[in-house]
């Protein structure tokens, strides 16, 4: 009787530990095979057949389709360069240069991966429509109220993520450092 009880407790614990850790790793993501440059994180192997089992589980669970390696790569950021979580009520500036690519797009998502509604119907920028400075650099202001220049509205949501997708780019599995892929800076410049 006592042995049965012990076995049941052990099995219940096993189920809780096992499924709990699976849930954790597929919702939060793991550090396996990630490429981190500044505040930006990419998983170059998700677009290949060498994808790790954790990324595969995450992708199928969330219903995403990863960008294939011959197509491009996606970098996402949920914090600024000082590790402060991106807040939709603050003014955040994304500025600088991007790695070599034929096109890039920058878009803003809520924490479920949906675009954020706004009256301007502005959900992101592409490399072609952005207003640049004389040196070719750019500055995008991510804020809830309208701003001059490249304004990306947040809709005032508390947490959001930015995704920079590079299309037709040499950045990929072989990329290791900032020198190969200079990513734009993200800075929170003011909070109400």
């Amino acid at each position, binding site marked *: 009787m006592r042995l049965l009880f*012990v076995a049941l*407790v*052990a*099995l*219940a*614990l*096993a*189920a*809780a*530990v*096992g*499924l709990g*850790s*699976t849930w954790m*790793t*597929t919702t939060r993501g793991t550090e396996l095979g990630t490429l981190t440059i500044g505040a930006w994180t990419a998983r170059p192997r*998700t*677009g*290949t*057949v060498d*994808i790790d*089992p*954790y990324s*595969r*589980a995450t*992708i*199928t*669970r*969330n*219903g*995403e*389709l*990863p*960008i*294939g*390696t*011959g*197509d*491009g790569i*996606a970098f996402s950021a949920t914090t600024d360069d000082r590790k402060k979580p991106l807040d939709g009520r603050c003014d955040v500036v994304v500025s600088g240069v991007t790695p070599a690519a*034929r*096109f890039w*797009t920058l*878009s803003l*998502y809520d924490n479920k*991966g*949906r*675009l*954020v*509604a706004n009256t301007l*119907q502005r*959900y*992101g920028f*592409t*490399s*072609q*429509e952005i207003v640049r400075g004389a040196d070719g650099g750019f500055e995008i202001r991510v804020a809830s109220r309208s701003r001059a220049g490249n304004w990306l509205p947040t809709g005032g949501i508390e947490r959001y993520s930015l*995704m920079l997708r590079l*299309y*037709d780019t040499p950045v990929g599995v072989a990329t290791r450092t900032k020198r190969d892929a200079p990513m734009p800076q993200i800075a929170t410049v003011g909070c109400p």
Partner: protein
Amino acid sequence: MIRLAFTIIAGILLGGVVHLVSVLALPRIATQDAYSRLTPITTLNAVIQLPAADPANTLMPYLDPALAVAVCRYDLSGGPLKLTVPVSQAYTSVSFYTRNELAYYAINDRSAGKKVIELDLMTEAQHSDLPEDEEITAADRLIIDSPSTTGLIVIKALAPEPGLMPQAQATLAASSCSTQVDQPPAKQAEAPRGKR
């Protein structure tokens, strides 16, 4: 006391096994994966355009709002598939996924190097059944082996500005994927080959 410690250790060890098994099994048992989400709105072996990415569109997370996307859900059991995608002005790409969302191949307009991306998709068995005829395996015919019989082909066209979206969608509307009608003759008797 020892019994309690033993129970906890056994539970955690078994939990590790449960964790590994569930992570590896998830791609096969997930019911809300991209293929299942796309199944109701697509037809087999045909190019179907997806609705534009906007906040009301909850089809898939993390859709790029600058892209027009079309999907061809394929099943190769009826024979190889022929895919034709005209190249748009900005950027066009074709990505291939297996039934379990494994991205096994992707090509863009520049690596295709032509005005039209033309591909033949077939299983490895169908590929090895092809006659080794020089006219058929000519250099301009790109053959891709699919690791699974079913899967997804995702065609993307970039609209560099929101105003160019109709143009990108027109590119996708002009693309096609269909089972090959003129089946190349299966391996024939070896007699004609001996004459060469």
